[in-house]
């Protein structure tokens, strides 16, 4: 006869309500882990999207994501000629805000040369950019549809294709336009300012500047040798893909990562305290029954089993509900929530451990119950 099960069945409504409350808490813990993972994944999405091996940026910087970087537009030709490089492309990155259908949209603009590395890795709807000007491929999260016309700077762009999951480290959806358009958007002066520069004798200024050059390296060559070769030009710095990813995860999103990590740890501690209190209260409610069981001769292991089994049942049901809940709503979060099976398993193991440790408080109370409590009114 399983006393734990029978007791839970008798108080099923209250038990399920407790499990539901716990599931909300564990759901929040799981979502925090998912947000943490999402933050890292978002930070790496645009870096991984072009599938390159080497990043060439302005000398003395760790751009283009961690710091601002500007290099001459003809750098790509020089990099493309390095031994081992099989493809190279110039890229620009810039954050912009625009109005679309009356709503303000924050976007992360990627400028690339169609046919060269740097464009969207997969277009899920529509097509890639086919014209050299005023076409864009936007991520679904931007809220645009194929055919929409979106003003950017002094020009209006037509959405020709959609990507899925292409976001910047800040969570802003990415849009892809041609390098020429992005240079104009980023570097071209407004007409009054341009006229002023011409009047000063500086000409209109050149817009042939890029943030970085990215390169794919032949399997026969090593990215390190290409970066060393690129760094011989004194105005350039270069890093491998792995180094660029480290810059992003350990620099750009480091504080946010630590903040969320710490908050997750605090939530786990809070969960442990709440589970311990729930179990303690559940045991307090059963003092008379425990005293009766002791009086009629139930051994300690029966009492401990009763409390531990209920603790584990509560933890597992709470975790299960929480995981289901977060899986169901994760796509409604404004930023990406990445739920990985190993994180779920780790949290389940942590919850089990917390339940076992937390039930110690209830077990201690139960073992101290005097069987004489059952006697008398």
């Amino acid at each position, binding site marked *: *006869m399983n006393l734990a099960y029978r007791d839970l069945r008798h108080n099923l409504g209250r038990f399920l309500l407790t499990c539901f409350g716990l599931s909300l808490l564990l759901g929040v813990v799981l979502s925090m882990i998912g947000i943490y993972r999402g933050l890292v994944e978002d930070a790496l999405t645009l870096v991984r999207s072009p599938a390159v091996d080497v990043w060439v940026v302005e000398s003395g910087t760790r751009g283009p994501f961690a710091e601002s970087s500007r290099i001459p537009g003809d750098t790509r030709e020089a990099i493309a000629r390095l031994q081992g490089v099989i493809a190279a492309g110039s890229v620009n990155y810039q954050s912009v805000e625009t109005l679309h259908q009356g709503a303000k949209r924050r976007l992360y603009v990627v400028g690339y040369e169609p046919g060269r590395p740097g464009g969207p890795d997969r277009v899920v709807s529509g097509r890639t950019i086919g014209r050299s000007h005023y076409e864009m491929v936007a991520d679904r999260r931007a809220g645009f549809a194929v055919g929409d016309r979106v003003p950017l700077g002094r020009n209006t762009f037509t959405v020709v294709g959609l990507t899925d999951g292409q976001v910047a480290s800040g969570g802003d959806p990415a849009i892809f336009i041609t390098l020429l358009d992005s240079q104009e958007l980023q570097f071209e002066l407004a007409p009054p300012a341009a006229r002023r520069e011409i009047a000063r004798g500086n000409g209109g200024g050149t817009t042939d500047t890029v943030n970085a050059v990215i390169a794919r390296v032949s399997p026969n060559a090593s990215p390190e040798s290409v970066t060393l070769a690129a760094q011989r030009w004194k105005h350039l710095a270069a890093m491998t893909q792995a180094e660029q990813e480290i810059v992003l995860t350990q620099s750009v999103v480091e504080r946010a990562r630590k903040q969320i990590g710490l908050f997750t740890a605090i939530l786990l501690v809070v969960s442990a305290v709440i589970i311990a209190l729930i179990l303690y209260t559940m045991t307090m409610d059963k003092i008379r029954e425990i005293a*009766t069981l002791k009086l*009629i001769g139930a*051994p300690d292991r029966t009492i401990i089993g009763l409390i531990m089994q209920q603790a584990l049942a509560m933890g597992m049901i709470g975790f299960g509900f929480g995981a289901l809940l977060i899986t169901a709503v994760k796509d409604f979060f404004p930023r990406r929530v990445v739920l990985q099976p190993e994180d779920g398993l780790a949290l389940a193991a942590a919850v089990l451990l917390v339940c076992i440790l937390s039930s110690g408080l209830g077990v201690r109370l139960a073992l101290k119950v005097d069987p004489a409590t059952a*006697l008398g009114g």
Partner: protein
Amino acid sequence: MADPAPQSPLVHIRNVSKHFGEGETRVDALRNVSIEVYPGQVVALLGPSGSGKTTLLNVIGCILEPSSGWVKLDNEIVYDGRWLRSDLRRLRLEKIGFIFQFHNLLPFLNSIDNVAVVLNLAGYDAEEAKRRAGELLDYLEVGHRKDAMPAKLSGGEAQRVAIARALANRPRIILADEPTAALDSQRAGIVMDLLRKVAAEQQAAILAVTHDEKIFNRFDHIFHLRDGRLET
């Protein structure tokens, strides 16, 4: 009334004293109490509040160790230093049945399982435990309520289920704490008749704490306690 049988007593306590605290706060709950209860006897413990009745019941029930004196249950001396807490619990399970003032049935088990749980703890398999529990409920004329939860039982039915639980392991000693306090006089009489029947048929010793004057005539012997002392 049944005469004390010639065999050795099932409950035999000699010069038992129990005090709580020391110095100025010392309270002597029991002072040199000696009692003998024989198989088939139904005896009552009477006394005003604070006279030591519950303390004596706890001592006999292997819940409370006396400060001095000895306790022999079914010819075995307990509290002689050989007994672990788990041994005493085992002794309670095998030899002592408890009946409480407010039945103390486990609220999450139905009537039959409240009785069967004791048999399960004693090592009976589930089927055998249920069979014997069912027989006991029939014996106590509450077999028709075997699937009812305690909250759905009347006071008399609940107390009969509690008696069935106390009898489940065929204990030699039954300790009852105000077994009829929550019942009207008619049901109190029925419960006492049941206890007398059990004592006679199973040759058990029954010791009941009671204030209930309407059942005094149903006991073989009445022990009066006052200020922890037995009055003759």
